[in-house]
């Protein structure tokens, strides 16, 4: 089903497409910056993840929701979400296996001297992945309802 059937859902505009193409890499970089700086400045996985997810929404505004849906690989989104969860839970449960509490980073320090710092960074990245993929998934899920009024389309 092409997006043209919708009641003015998508309007092709050279200005928007060009702007999005220029801005997208910077937004993605900014998202990573926010994620990496979560430990010592305001920011973190949640905020960074939302910014990263917004890149896909920007693309959807510029190029149409349906074409973006086809372009974004479902497997990448799924891998981001479950990979993020597994990184987060793995680091947390690993600390418990080493005799600490959940997410107690300093039990890793005998093995690697900067474990606390990089442990937090990894967890932030994991959370960022989860949040970004959930935001993208939610966007497509809600958009599906508006695009396909007949109800035969999902995701």
């Amino acid at each position, binding site marked *: 089903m092409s997006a043209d059937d919708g009641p003015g859902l998508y309007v092709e505009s050279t200005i928007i497409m060009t702007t999005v193409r220029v801005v997208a890499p910077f937004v993605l970089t900014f998202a990573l910056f926010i994620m990496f700086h979560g430990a010592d400045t305001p920011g973190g996985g949640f905020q960074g993840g939302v910014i990263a997810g917004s890149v896909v929404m920007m693309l959807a505004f510029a190029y149409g929701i349906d074409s973006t849906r086809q372009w974004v690989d479902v497997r990448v989104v799924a891998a981001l979400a479950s990979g993020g969860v597994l990184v987060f839970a793995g680091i947390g449960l690993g600390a418990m296996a080493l005799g600490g*509490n959940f997410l*107690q980073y300093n039990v890793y320090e005998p093995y690697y001297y900067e474990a606390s710092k990089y442990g937090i960074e990894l967890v932030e990245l994991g959370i960022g992945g989860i949040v970004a993929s*959930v935001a993208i998934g939610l966007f497509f*899920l809600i958009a599906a309802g508006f695009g396909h*009024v007949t109800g035969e389309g999902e995701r």
Partner: protein
Amino acid sequence: MIEHLPVLLVVLPIIGASVPLVASLYTDRIGWSIAVLTMLAYAALAGLLAQQVWPDTVVSYAVGGFALPYGIELVVDGLSLAVVLLISAITLGVLAYARHAGPHENTFYSQLLLLVTGLTGMTVTGDVFNLYVFLEITGLAAYGLVASGREASAAVAALKYLIIGTVGASLYLLGVGYALAVTGTLNMADMSGKLAAVGYDSTLVLTAFGLMVGGLSVKVALFPLHTWQPDAYANSPDSVSAFISALVSTVSAYALARLLFSVFTVDFLTAVPAARWALIVVASVSIVAGSALAVSQASVQRMLAYSSVSQFGLVIAGFAVATPIAVVGATVHLVGHAVMKGGLFAATGIIERETGTTTIGGYAGMGGRTPLAAGAFTVLALGMVGVPPAIGFVGKWYILVGAVEAELWPVVAVLLASTLLTLAYFARLGERLYFAEPTIREEGAIADGGEGSDGGERAEGSRSSSEPRSEGGDGDDGENAVSTGMLAVLVVAAVLAVALTAAVPALEQLLTETLPPLIQ
């Protein structure tokens, strides 16, 4: 292992949620099994936790081993334990229902487990900011679940839910900001001491209270902040409406109680009578307005949704009265309402599958067509009204006794009136089910007449009932058939609605031993 139980309860479902996503690269039908395995393990952990808390222990856990007022603390006392056990039982019930009723996609079960993560986190956390994080996780998962309905109306309902829910969560976050500014801490226990030191009449403290309670009231769906709720309940798939109607508002109401008793404490409520009265007034208005709106609905699911607005008013009124007996009553009603409302939504799902009807007019004469579902529906409805052996009676009775003891006569009047109002809308439905002539023929043709006010619902009912369906004969129309699992869930819910009464003394003992001091 045993001391890590609180955090394992949160981590287990989130790991479970990530597995179906990976698995969907290979098969799209494994989500249910993974969810069941996860929830069985969850139930085992919840049981172990109950063993630890019973009869008078408060379990505390420092995430990351950070020293306590600074790190995130998880706390499990009698109240949170009751909610954790409820989450465990309801989720298993919904899974048994969804086995046949669907949705069958892996992503549905991922979202379901993510919702369980959020709800559990809200229940066990002892940190006001952490509560916000889990509130958002709960919200995101719930929006996604509502949007998984097939009709366009589900997406609209999800979008409305998303916007209003986000406003509510933001209000709560703003309140947390004020509380942090005035106390410098986010830990609930630490914050309650520092709020007392600052003085309860400080403008900052009052603002924080107003924003946090206001934000949570949106999530609980108290009148007039309930507008997201009927659409979300009525437009999502039946498994989803049973699940979110039973748990999402329930856990938010729990969070509100946690805030009242563990953060602001009853000293705040006695020092600032205006705050207590504000809560009581909102709750009372909610009881009356919710019932009045429920009476005027044509669709059964919307009626049940408005009934929730009214019943949560009752629960919050109980918490605001804040005497020990009223709090026990509110907790009993919180748990009882979850079981009964989940069961009622499951019953509407089954009745819709068997007869194709969703409106009160269409329920006419269906008592004979679907005896088991209609019977269970009636038992649950009577329980909700508060007919004595059922759990609904005990909850309301305790809240009433608490209000009488506290000499809050307006509350007593509203409580008594609410029972009559609840009877008003459920009795109408019972009368339709058993004493009215069917308006829908065996063949599935819709007779005209009946409620004409809800054109869309009628049209939908006639669309789905014009499809060929077998009345339990050859049972091979996969999509609309009713499985034994679905009926079993319904029967268990109806039995629980009565049997839970036996657990009330245990809950009462648990709450008296572990809750912070209440108004005597």
